[in-house]
């Protein structure tokens, strides 16, 4: 038996490309080959048109994570970009969700292929991407700009909180969102209740707006916990302690965090203002708010556009109320631009030109208006288009202002495992299988162990 294994080992060699799922590499390899062919023909055509600059073709892998025509919007921007930089051809490649973009890039690199020059991936993927040696820092590109510091300073600071590592900037915010609380203003007005300003007034409002009629209950609050860390984080921040300190330190076993878990449980157990147990309702909550089945939901600011379209009442948007009167909390989310290390230098430079172009104020404003993402630069709010939009949709400004109260989104070394551990135990607490204190203590112990290999 050992002999057979040794032969197998010798036959494969250490450089053997990764091979996990049967179908994935085949699917990934095929389009990549096609695109190289297209690339060559495109380059040939460009040589005649622009003799002074070497023509270059870059790919941009992007996900679609919201209910908006992202592909059409991006194609419009790319046309404008190519008009300004005729020697650069940009090929946008739709790649599924965020996880799929990362998977596609990983399998391309593992299979020995050339990755796309630009990938739009989660801001929190930072450490995994650095450790895998997939991305390059962007300080060099920024240094070459006329006023690089002004360019960086124009981004809303909350959106840069997951971009720095080792004093270098690794990603540029693109499609960013924040956790907010949406509420039905009409229901609040009818019941004579003011929007909440603390945990206590939040729970009281949710309790007062919970109406049971026969078999059906119209809940005061829907707060999903099927992928809990993100929506939970503003509760912890509102209690006084975010669940992470840096890439190597998570804070789960802490009285403030435990209080936040307990507050979530109490919303159903004490106040009867929310269904009990883990709520696998992320996908249905927006519909429930729009149809009046609930008065408030915790959700992403990215749902604003579709909520405004669906609902026939006045929609309120605010950060979560914090534990103390008059305090609030939120947390950012969403995807950033990364430049891939495996792409040749001339493609990396073209990629930076594209990122710089698309983070121009006009485009940032337009992208926000058309998708519901938060415009991520201050200058975007001064554009005429944004000013006009804010008159119609003042809520868009509320989502931005929620970020004033934001802490950093959970991003650590070994993120997948650490997040999985947190999800496991907070769900046990919510389902009543463990007390909040026991669950957070166990989560802390396991997460510390999972980080040990990464943080010597």
């Amino acid at each position, binding site marked *: 038996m050992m002999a057979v294994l040794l032969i197998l080992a010798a036959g494969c060699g250490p450089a*053997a490309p990764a091979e996990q799922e049967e179908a994935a590499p085949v699917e990934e390899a095929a389009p990549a080959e096609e695109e190289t062919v297209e690339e060559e023909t495109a380059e040939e055509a460009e040589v005649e048109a622009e003799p002074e600059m070497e023509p270059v073709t870059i790919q941009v892998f992007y996900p679609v994570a919201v209910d908006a025509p992202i592909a059409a919007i991006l194609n419009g921007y790319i046309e404008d970009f190519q008009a300004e930089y005729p020697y650069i051809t940009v090929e946008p490649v739709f790649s599924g969700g965020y996880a799929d973009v990362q998977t596609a890039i990983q399998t391309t690199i593992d299979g020995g292929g050339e990755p796309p020059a630009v990938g739009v991936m989660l801001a929190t993927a930072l450490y995994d991407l650095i*450790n895998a040696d997939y991305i390059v820092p962007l300080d060099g590109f920024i240094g070459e700009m006329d006023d690089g510091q002004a360019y960086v300073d124009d981004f809303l600071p909350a959106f840069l909180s997951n971009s720095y590592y080792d004093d270098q900037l690794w990603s540029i915010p693109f499609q960013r969102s924040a956790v907010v609380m949406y509420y039905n203003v009409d229901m609040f007005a009818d019941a004579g209740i003011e929007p909440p300003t603390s945990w206590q007034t939040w729970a009281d409002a949710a309790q007062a707006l919970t109406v049971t009629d026969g*078999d059906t209950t119209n809940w005061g609050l829907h707060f999903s916990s*099927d992928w809990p860390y993100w929506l939970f984080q503003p509760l912890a921040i509102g209690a006084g302690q975010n669940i992470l300190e840096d890439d190597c330190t998570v804070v789960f076993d802490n009285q403030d965090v435990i209080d936040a878990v307990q507050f979530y449980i109490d919303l159903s157990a004490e106040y009867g203002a929310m269904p009990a147990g883990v709520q696998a309702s992320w996908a*249905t909550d927006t519909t429930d708010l729009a149809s009046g*089945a609930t008065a408030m939901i915790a959700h992403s600011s990215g749902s604003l556009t579709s909520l405004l379209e669906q609902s026939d009442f006045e929609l309120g948007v605010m950060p979560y109320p914090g534990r103390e009167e008059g305090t609030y909390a939120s947390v950012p989310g969403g995807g950033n631009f990364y430049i891939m290390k495996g792409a040749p230098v001339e493609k990396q430079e073209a990629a930076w030109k594209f990122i710089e172009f698309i983070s121009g104020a006009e485009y940032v404003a337009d992208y926000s208006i058309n998708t519901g993402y938060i415009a991520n630069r201050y200058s975007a709010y001064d554009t005429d288009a944004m000013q006009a939009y804010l008159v119609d949709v003042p809520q868009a400004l509320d989502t931005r202002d929620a970020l004033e109260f934001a802490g950093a989104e959970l991003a650590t070394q070994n993120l997948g495992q650490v997040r999985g551990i947190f999800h496991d135990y907070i769900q046990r607490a919510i389902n009543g299988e463990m007390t909040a204190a026991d669950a957070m203590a166990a989560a802390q112990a396991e997460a510390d162990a999972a980080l040990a290999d990464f943080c010597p």
Partner: protein
Amino acid sequence: MSTQVSPKRRNPLPYILILPTALFVALFTAWPVLQSIYQSFFLQRLNIARLREPTFAGLENYIDLFNDPYFIQVIKNTLTYILGTVPVSIILGFFFALLVNRKIRGVGFLRLAFFHPMVLPMVSAATIWLFFFTPDYGLLNSGLRLLGYTGAENWTGNPDLALLSVIIVAIWKNSGYYMIFYLAGLQNLPEEVFEAASLDGASSWQQLWKITFPLLRRTTLFITTIAFIDAFRTVDHIFVLTTGGPSRRSTVLLYELWQQRFDFQDVGKAAAITVILILVLLIFTITNFITSERKEV
């Protein structure tokens, strides 16, 4: 006679004909399997700089997996998932086939109704089921309330019901597919046998168990095999319905494999799980064929 046989033996045509398939299988099945076996003996984690390059570790990946209570939970979940989906969807498929094999009005509509879940992509189907499972106004709870059940049951969020929820969706998805094979089998059965049985006074129940079912044994074998493989392969709805939760209660082997490779970036463990998966499928498929061939005599 023998002089005629030997040139036939050397005839290269069959080998040439089988060559493309053999190459394809070697390239896209055998080679990846060998690679997975090889990789499973190495520590390789893409998100730890010093483990980016594979380091030989013998059986460490396997030992780690089987010492991890969480992986044991995944194995238990997988077994429950298989025992919950395979027999039930095959039995349902069989009875659906009996039902739509008759000359009754509206049989076309019934066939369509049973078969349409197969045509829907699993992700869209699961998205529809999300609403069926909704605690307050979901179809399942509304149905239960009609039967006198009070209170809202939280399906996908309840640790004791989450796995059942994904099992229900898998049964709904697959039964109609298996029905098609049984239907094809039923329509090929010789009618004389049933006529003879009727003349001998066999009840329809006896005919079903003593004639129909035994005659369809080959179909059953085929369906059992693909149902078993399907049960390992289908995880799309888990991504949509439960993301393996709550507290990992609905994580099955293939979902865990995806998580290890792409969420935890643990190439070695993912390869080890791949090998375990392949071994289980191989053992099942081979024993299934051997035992059935023996009964054939």
